[in-house]
């Protein structure tokens, strides 16, 4: 059975204000879903709440990943299960080189960070590190980032586009089963969008599922999502296939939103 991320009637508040008002959605591995919607519809809240940001308070519903309720889990535990979030605004961390950080993350996920007696297996680590370095180099190249980015401090001094591409490098190296991408395409020029979309396409397969949050239809041209959902006011208001995205591109969001107001769905 495919591993699934099952979101059921999810309600989330931020600083006392309810943003997600009963959202239901299932993303299985092997599927690519796209969530579209106007500003303020709660797309980023969904992404951050799924990953477990402490500021986002879950007030109702449940989220199962591989059959396990993840709402009680720390963000790192969700990551170990195979969940990944590509941030809309990746954070800058001074003094921590991208490569070193990713290696630490990789080790944490492999469960090698610390063995029971506190002594890591040096031989295995060295071998894994060698492979990791090769892979990092390959993935940087895939995202058209210079090799030197591995030594640069995490997102510090990166341009907006470089930050987004570095997120996808991280995603490739950590190999999640379900990846949430929060407006990865915003702020990218058309060439970068293509590079990023191709990198995402490479991951597609039966072992990988994605939830791609976007404001624009543009990126969807480069990889056809299996499902397209429209989000408004904290809920999914319409679901369909790729043709829905095309329809949105032609008509804008208003026809759906207005239709909803009139009770048509």
């Amino acid at each position, binding site marked *: 059975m495919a591993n699934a991320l099952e979101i059921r009637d999810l309600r989330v508040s931020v600083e006392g204000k309810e943003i997600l008002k009963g959202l239901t959605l299932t993303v299985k591995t092997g599927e690519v879903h796209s969530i579209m919607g106007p500003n303020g519809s709660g797309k980023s809240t969904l992404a951050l709440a799924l*990953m*477990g*940001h*402490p*500021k986002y308070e879950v007030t109702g519903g449940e989220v199962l990943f591989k059959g396990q309720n993840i709402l009680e889990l*720390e*963000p*790192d535990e*969700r*990551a*170990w299960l195979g969940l*990944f*979030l590509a*941030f809309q605004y*990746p*954070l800058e*961390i*001074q*003094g*921590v080189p991208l490569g070193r*950080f*990713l290696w*630490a*993350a*990789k080790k*944490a*996920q492999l469960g090698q*960070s610390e063995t029971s007696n*506190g*002594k890591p297996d040096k031989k295995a680590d060295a071998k894994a590190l060698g492979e990791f370095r090769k892979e990092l180099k390959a993935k940087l190249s895939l995202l058209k980032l210079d090799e030197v980015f591995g030594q640069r*401090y*995490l997102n510090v001094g990166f341009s907006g586009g470089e930050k987004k591409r570095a997120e996808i490098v*991280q995603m490739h190296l*950590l190999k999640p089963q379900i990846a949430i991408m929060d407006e990865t395409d915003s702020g990218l020029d058309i060439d970068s969008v293509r590079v990023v979309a191709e990198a995402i396409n490479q991951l597609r397969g039966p072992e990988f599922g994605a939830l791609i949050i976007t404001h624009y239809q543009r990126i969807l041209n480069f990889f056809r999502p299996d499902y397209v959902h429209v989000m408004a006011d904290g809920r999914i208001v319409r679901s369909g296939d790729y043709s829905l995205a095309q329809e949105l591109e032609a008509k804008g969001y208003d026809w759906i939103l207005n239709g909803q107001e009139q009770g048509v769905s």
Partner: protein
Amino acid sequence: MPKEDVRHLGEKRHGSATVEKKRETFERDYSQYDFKFPTDRYQHVLKPGLSREIIEEISHLKNEPNWMREFRLQAYEVFLKKTMPMWGADLSTINFDRITYYASPSDKSARSWDDVPEEVKKTFDRLGIPEAERKFLAGVGAQYDSEVVYHSIREDLAKKGVVFLSMDDGLREYPDLVKEYIATVIPPTDNKFAALNSAVWSGGSFIYVPKGVQVEIPLQAYFRINAPQMGQFERTLIIADEGARVHYIEGCTAPVYSRESLHSAVVELIAKRGAHLRYTTLQNWSNDVYNLVTKRAVAYEDATVEWVDANIGSRITMKYPAVYMLGKGAKADILSVAFAGKGQHQDTGGKAIHAAPYTTSTIVSKSVSKDGGRASYRGQLVVAKGAHHAKSNVRCDALLLDERSRTDTYPYIEIDEDQVTIGHEATVGKVGDDQIFYLQSRGLSEAEALSMIVLGFMEPFTKTLPMEYAIEFNRLIQLEMEGSVG
């Protein structure tokens, strides 16, 4: 120093009987002594407290020349007259009468491993310190193993004429050189603790690097044999002759368990014309120690002195490495890092004295406070009249990990010259939830994420270290960070 002397020094060290004899010593099997060190060579512990008699006895036991005995006695008189510093950390609980001022290394090592606190042992485990080193660091054994490894390095140094001895051996083998330079940078009258050190000093390093000699590898305190690596009152003197280059590292990241609660060292550096001298300290005294150290360098024309100073352990540290730029074009680089945990006060910083034109100084101070710890930056910047075109840049960054912890900045600036460029910047930061979340979302625990951010903050320091020190330092910070979350 005349050229002849330099060559003489080289020949004396190279292939000398001393080196051969030491090789023999290395090959002896010390395992039979278990936690103990053969005590037939040293077994002196003087009674606590300080007096002329005690000082004469120290000098006698060390079989020193008269001038050194006189130097000690005069320093003792200064010590009696000087008042305690009325600024900085609280030193009111130091009781000079209860301190033992001289104990030879062997009886330090005669202490049993059982006496070492459980916490220190546990930290050794976590740091992965080899068995032999643990005993040494805990003061219950001496470290001979590394001596074997470094033997060939010592021979190379000897060939180049580099003198690298304990201060005690330095005084025995090069009395004239020691006499010429000792206390020229830090006289006993400088402060009460410098006076105390001058009266009772023991151990420390004596290094002379001849003209133009580049020492490629960092010299580390534990290369030496039979010298207490970190005595209570060690005295270090390093002379880099014209155009010489040397990097010295003292200390280590494992907690040093000491029998006395006062550590008061004096370190004097002399960088002659065009010399390049870097001095790195990693201090991790156990948390009951008062660490009151005077460090000062003089830099002549076009010379560069770099102090790299990390303070992690101790209850109180007061330490402000100084560089007096006495020659045109001299440079000073002071990088000071402090970590103040529960019950600790790290009062550290740096001093840059511009006494010549076209001199440049940079002071960077980074501190982390957590669990109610306090880190203070105290710095002095002086540009004397005539030191035109001096440039100085001071930067202090403090990271506070919780609301109970504290950081202060005390910059003292005196500028007596118009044509100068001075920059001063201070920041106080906190770790943001979003940063922690970002790192956590990649699989790091909250504690690991916080450690990583702190390590990143310390990176400007860590990257100056040789790799093995950097790794140890990072592990140590990770240990210090544990338990600070949740």
